[in-house]
């Protein structure tokens, strides 16, 4: 019994060794190695440079803003804050190039987000970046398929599959040996290029790999990447088990690759958009502003009515109605009455405005969430999208980042509201003007503008958001493996 076990394990070892040598001495290995070693470190170098640029730009902007406007507020101050780049965006730029990098708070509660956009390098934007995730999704996955697409069909054609089967090795063992062998052969150039890339990354003055925010995420990213590679290797084997000659295998492999790596991820948001159309954010912003305007308009009307009523009641002269400092006694009395009666009305409108905006926003975010979950779940048919979702999520540039940005902006808006906007009372006048008052010894010249602390989702949150994708990746690996096993058991080796 023990002897058989040892014999089997020895046999498996021999098989794996054979696979590895067969893969390594092939032309494909040379070319895959070449591509990996060139693309991954170069991509990392450029990603690092790009990150340093973005970080420098952020620091300059932030410092300058704090110096100029960090202390002392004026009635019309609109505090601004900037989004720092995420360190991990070196690995996956994701939605980062599209993200707004600045937000401006507003007294009305409608903060604005803008992107100071200077296009530095048009060619690079036109063709896209070669970050780590791109290299893995396009180069490494294609390499995995090319390594394995004819492992059964090719051996059948050459007749060597018959010889292997003729020995007393179960087919499952052969399959296992092929998966492990090709996986190891693919991992060698990948690991080497990753090591070089990490060395390059660590040479940067702004990035240190061992800092706690980096190495944990990095470890998880690497783990997920190895899982993804396993997926792709078993997919290639699956393809080869489905076909009987190499030509069919390669056509099927390219087809499957094009579908999984390009079509499904890119088409599913489009399909979701067609299935469940939601208006653009610009349109929504306009709607919001229109509603805010409508409510404001009603408020102004009611205010004028009230003022007229108050002044009529006291019989104050017309001339006092348009100023906040009435000259006559009657005017003063009317003004006092007006101010007393106006305060609750203003508050009521404020509440109404906030409620209307909240309702509108909730509705909009509900609809965009529905659409985005349709898009995400559709795209999860492909392991490539699952992989992209996790890695970009861990890099702080994933699909939840726009929401995270909005949350940060909202938090900062609340902070500024507490510290500044609530301290300044606006007395509105007829005809649109206003007067500002600073109650309770609030010194506008010395008041600090709160500083923004932008938080990216931490590892636990990112894993929480991406756990489904990790499970799916594992499932895909198992599924492809099981499918291959099924097909191989029925495979006609002649």
């Amino acid at each position, binding site marked *: 019994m023990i002897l058989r076990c040892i014999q089997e394990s020895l046999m498996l070892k021999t098989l794996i060794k054979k696979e590895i040598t067969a893969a390594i001495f092939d032309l494909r290995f040379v*070319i895959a190695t070449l591509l990996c070693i060139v693309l991954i470190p170069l991509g990392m170098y450029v990603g690092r440079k790009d990150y340093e640029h973005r970080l420098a730009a952020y620091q*300059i902007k932030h410092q300058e803003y704090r110096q100029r406007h960090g202390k002392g507020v004026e009635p019309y101050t609109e505090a601004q804050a900037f989004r720092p780049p995420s360190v991990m965006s070196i690995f996956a730029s994701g939605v980062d190039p599209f993200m707004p990098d600045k937000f401006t708070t507003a007294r009305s509660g409608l903060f604005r987000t803008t992107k100071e956009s200077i296009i530095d390098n048009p*060619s690079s934007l*036109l*063709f896209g970046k070669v970050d780590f995730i791109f290299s893995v999704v396009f180069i490494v996955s294609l390499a995995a398929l090319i390594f394995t697409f004819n492992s059964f069909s090719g051996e059948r054609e050459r007749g060597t599959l018959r010889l292997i089967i003729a020995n007393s090795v179960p087919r499952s063992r052969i399959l296992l040996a092929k998966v492990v062998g090709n996986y190891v052969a693919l991992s060698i150039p990948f690991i080497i290029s990753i090591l070089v890339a990490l060395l390059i990354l660590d040479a940067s003055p702004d990035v240190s790999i061992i800092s706690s925010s980096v190495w944990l995420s990095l470890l998880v990213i690497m783990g997920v990447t190895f899982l993804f590679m396993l997926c792709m290797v078993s997919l290639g084997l699956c393809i080869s088990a489905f076909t009987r000659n190499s030509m*069919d295998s390669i056509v099927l492999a390219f087809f499957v690759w*094009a579908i999984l790596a390009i079509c499904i991820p890119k088409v599913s948001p*489009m399909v979701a958009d067609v299935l469940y159309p939601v208006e653009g954010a610009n349109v929504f912003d306009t709607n919001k502003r229109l509603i805010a305007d409508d409510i404001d308009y009603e408020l102004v009307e009611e205010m004028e009515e009230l003022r007229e009523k108050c002044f009529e009641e006291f019989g104050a002269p017309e001339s006092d109605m348009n100023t906040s400092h009435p000259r006559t006694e009657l005017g003063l009395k009317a003004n006092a009455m007006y101010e007393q009666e106006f305060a609750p009305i203003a508050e009521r409108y404020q509440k109404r405005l906030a409620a209307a905006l909240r309702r509108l926003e909730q509705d909009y975010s509900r609809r965009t969430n529905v659409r985005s979950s349709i898009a995400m779940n559709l795209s999860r048919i492909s392991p490539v999208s699952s992989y992209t979702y996790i890695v970009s999520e861990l890099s702080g540039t994933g699909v939840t980042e726009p929401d995270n940005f909005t949350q940060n902006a909202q938090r900062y808006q609340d902070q500024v509201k507490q510290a500044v906007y609530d301290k300044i009372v606006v007395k509105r006048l007829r005809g649109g003007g206003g007067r500002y008052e600073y109650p309770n010894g609030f010194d506008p010249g010395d008041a600090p503008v709160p500083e923004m602390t932008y938080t990216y989702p931490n590892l636990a949150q990112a894993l929480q958001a991406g756990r489904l994708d990790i499970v799916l990746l594992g499932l895909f690996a198992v599924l492809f493996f099981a499918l291959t096993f099924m097909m191989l058991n029925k495979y006609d080796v002649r």
Partner: protein
Amino acid sequence: MFRTLVGKEIAETMLGLRFAIATLLCMVLIPLGMYVSRKDYEHRLASYQGELQTYKERFGTPPTPLTGGEEAQGFRPPSVLSIFASGLDPFMPDKVFTSQSGLFRTVKESGIDNPQSLLFGKVDFLFNVMFIISLAALIFTFNSISGEREKGTLRLMIAHSIPRSRILLSKIVGKYIVLLVPFMISVFIALLVLDASPVVSIGSPEVWPPLLVILMVTLLFIFSMVSLGVCISTFTSHSMGSIVLLFFVWAMFIIGVPRMSPMIAESIYPVESGSVFSFRKRMVRDDIEKQFEQVKKETIDSKWDKERDIVQEMQLKASNELANRMKALGREVSFEVVKEDPDFRKLRKKFNQKYQELRDKYEPQVEHLFNQCQRRIASELNRIEQDYRNRRNIQFSIATNLARISPVSCYAYIVSGLSGTGVAEPDNFVRNARMFQEDINQIFYDKVFHLFGQQGRQRRAEGFNVSDSLSFPDMRYRFLNLTEAVQMHWPDILLLCLFDVLFCTLALMRFNRYDVR
């Protein structure tokens, strides 16, 4: 004979699995991509129009009195042809703020609508041709020679009295025609989809000529890919080798060269980023202003203050004398009396006149100095901007020329250039923004003068009344027209033709010496 050969190629390819798969991919992706891009364009157009309208209603006429610092806003309309190649469009700023200093600002109002689609990128026409069609062309052809050798049919063909060049040519033409069938059908459907849009009409003069050129260039590009595939197959003697070579060539041409050349250019010739540069510009500006403030303090203010002090002393003395005289006359001297007394009034008037004289003497000097300062800032900023632009252009041309090793990047440059979303578009945007700034300068900023006075800056307007309302004109955004775009990209078109010829020649050369056994 040639026709028979071509017919054989066509029939063989059409009945293969690859044709079915390529047709399927084309038919699904190209029309779907067009539909989605069209929708996207409609959204962008609507939001552009909405924004323009809101702006005109709210800020088109700034409230009076004008301060001279009002900012006019201009908006960039989306280009119709961006449906075909979104190119740089998602990164372009869409708004420009003019400013009184002449340094306009460009801003992108960015709300992220659809993060998934941004994460994975769009499937526009350019992408489909670059990735799907080129891959299909290579897959159609990669074993056209080596595969026939393996099957042994190449020997039979060579045994006939047909020159090898004819065989090769028939292969290229046959595969090309077969590939064009699904492509043409799907483009036709896509154009129908496009024409169904209420805001786009293909027959309009700004759409159809560039569209025609784009299609022509696409045909040229597909031909270069087909001949590249045949070329690959002549370099190897069996299909497996062809596949590996194909993988390498495709990865290099489609991914490696276009994406890496900007990176390589950046490492060879580094240039600081735009935000750092604009920060440096602001620093230079502040420095010069500070310098001039210093000069003003040393040369003008000191003299002015000295003379004013003298006058003040004289005034004090004179009024003291006057007060003493009044006291001597037995009159009470108090604030009210001084205020009303005719003698004091005369004295004050006299000294006010002296102050005025001083002001008249020094204010022109201050204004002169201020103008000088402005001129120097302008020339200095111009100089460093010119320098920066030169360095940028060098880096840019390194990147562009490096990328031209691959026909794919040539193709992408042409199509995006014709679509108004190419690499020249950021410059074009800046040009438009500058023109807009100049328009506003002419009608507004140039007519407002600023003076340095004792109370800081003062404002004086000429030619119009600050309390009259003024409405700013719209920005007239001009995309590069067809002639300009073609003029800019003729090297790329020429290169594509050259690539066609090169790959064909290379294939022919290799095939003439090909071992058919």
